[in-house]
């Protein structure tokens, strides 16, 4: 057995299932997408000698990347330390603990950069304290996008040439990694990134983000803006509504970022009949039974269910206030080219 095979015990879980939705629109539906970049980053780090056998892995995460690391850490016998915050779902926390991860919770946001910044500061202290510890750093690690060449291959295997790729953007790894690999073969590929209001990724002023897994308050190095033709922003209520719609109409029980991708992809597919469209759906719905799939919880969400737009409003600048589903033609520009040199947030 090769060394790679030994590290790929969960490989069957990292590949998406391809589900036809309507016409030539397909879902690439992942059990837990982050297993792929997590496994790939650990493999490369081991090869380079950055991650030694038995060394502690440290990461900041309150979501699926932490879970993926915890599953792999068990298989590969690494202690895992995760820095998270109060938003960490209690079921996920229980699961992480059972997997042997040590979970450190940050309570107070940093003055700028919010909880995300505060978590990184604590993480940095742990890394200093633990000699030989390894930080995968999914936001900046170039192996994150590189791991998705395999998904690009699988999409070609299953649907052939791809015309349009739609997906949520968090670290930038999946969208930029798949887009780059597909564009080497199909240069005219159209890409639609899905973000949420108050996320700085595509130029919104920073603010509180109520939708985990989408956007962020810190700009990751792995977001390559020049890979995107078009950006959509969906509010949490809109993403949740789309998540239910995906479940009811297609039987796919997925998380809210999948719903957001489904909504934007359906909109684009309707306007471009005959084009092969892939919507990336990063995780399943089980983690969200107490939230997105709970009517009582949903009733507490601002704007649920009445302020949901059924089509995006095209904005003239991504810095505009976005009370609902918005859209901007990014045209593969850099963030600076879009916002102009005067913007202080870059």
């Amino acid at each position, binding site marked *: 057995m*090769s060394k*790679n*095979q030994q590290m*790929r015990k969960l490989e069957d879980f990292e590949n998406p299932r391809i589900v036809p939705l309507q016409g030539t629109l397909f879902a690439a539906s992942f059990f837990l997408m982050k297993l792929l970049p997590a496994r790939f980053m650990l493999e*490369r780090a081991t090869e380079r000698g950055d991650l030694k056998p038995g060394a502690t892995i440290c990461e900041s995460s309150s979501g699926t990347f932490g879970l993926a690391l915890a599953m792999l850490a068990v298989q590969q016998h690494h202690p895992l330390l995760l820095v998270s915050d109060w938003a960490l779902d209690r079921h996920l926390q229980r699961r992480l603990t059972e997997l042997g991860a040590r979970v450190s919770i940050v309570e107070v946001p940093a003055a700028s950069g919010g909880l995300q910044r505060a978590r990184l500061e604590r993480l940095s202290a742990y890394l200093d304290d633990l000699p030989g510890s390894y930080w995968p750093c999914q936001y900046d690690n*170039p*192996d994150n996008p*590189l*791991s*998705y*060449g*395999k998904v*690009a*291959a*699988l*999409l*070609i*295997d299953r649907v*052939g*040439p791809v015309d349009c790729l739609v997906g949520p953007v968090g670290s930038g790894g999946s969208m930029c990694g798949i887009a780059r*690999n*597909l564009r*080497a*073969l*199909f240069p005219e590929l159209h890409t639609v990134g899905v973000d949420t209001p108050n996320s700085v990724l595509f130029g919104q002023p920073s603010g509180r983000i109520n939708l985990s897994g989408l956007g962020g308050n810190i700009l990751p190095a792995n977001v390559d803006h020049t890979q995107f033709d078009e950006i959509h922003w969906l509010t949490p209520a809109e993403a949740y509504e789309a998540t239910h719609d995906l479940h009811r109409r297609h039987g796919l029980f997925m998380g809210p970022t999948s719903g957001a991708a489904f909504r934007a992809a359906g909109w684009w597919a309707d306007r471009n009949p005959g084009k092969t469209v892939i919507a990336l759906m990063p995780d399943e719905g089980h983690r969200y039974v107490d939230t997105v799939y709970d009517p009582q919880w949903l009733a507490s969400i601002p704007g649920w269910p009445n302020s949901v737009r059924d089509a995006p409003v095209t904005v003239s600048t991504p810095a505009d206030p976005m009370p609902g589903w918005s859209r901007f033609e990014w045209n593969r520009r850099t963030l600076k080219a879009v916002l102009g040199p005067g913007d202080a947030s870059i």
Partner: protein
Amino acid sequence: MPAATGYAQAMGHHGELVQGLFEDTGGFLKRALVSLPCPELRAKASFQPDDSNRIITLQPDRHKALLAAELTVAAFGPQGMGGALSLESNIPIGRGMGSSTADVLASILAVADCLQITVCAEQVMHIAVCAETACDSTLFQQQAVLFAHREGLVVESFRKALPAMEVISIDTTPGATVDTLEFEPARYATAEIEAFRPIRSLLRAAINAADARMLGRAATASAHINQRFLPKPRLDEIEAIGARSGAVGVQVAHSGTVVGLMFDKRDADAPRNIGQALDMLRRSAFEPTVFHN
């Protein structure tokens, strides 16, 4: 001792459609390629047996072909068998067009013909790799293969032969030659290794669907990766001419100097497109020639 002279031919190629690093079924990365066979280019070998226990050739520069004949005789011939090996070829040398491999393959097959035996592809490949450390995939005509050229092993066998194409051949550095075997194998970066996965998928889809258009895109992506290792001067200009004249892609000799502009033979406009591309290439001071695959 066989008395009759054995004859055989082997084909040259116009570089590769794809060459890179690919996972085999065991998850190990292998250097592998798909050659673009060129039936107009051939090496012809004849082997006249005798009982001298020694093989000679009148062409002393063909020592790899001689070694291949010796290995074949040693493996399959009777004790004491010797003979005279003679070769002729119209394959250009040092262009990455498989002249040396074609000599080797023709020699192995000429000895086999003389012995009146059929040697299976695996054994032919094994001898060829022993004689010159690498081999190409021109032997596989009925079904295209992704071929580990330094090991003589098939990494993946596709369902069909390559789709029909017309290729305009351009030698980018007519004065220089590349010693295929001295040329150090490419050290691919992680990004390139991962990029070969979708390229392989499109290659497979293209061959199985007999789609020259998709094949052109896979070949172009492979050619771009190769630019970091053995760059073809003015490749971008050749590509631009191709884009304006309906070419489906470019392919290169990954260990040579030639570039091919690929056209879909099933496209009714192909002859006109090729004529247009030839004009544009000549006006840009290239020296193009056309061959059929």
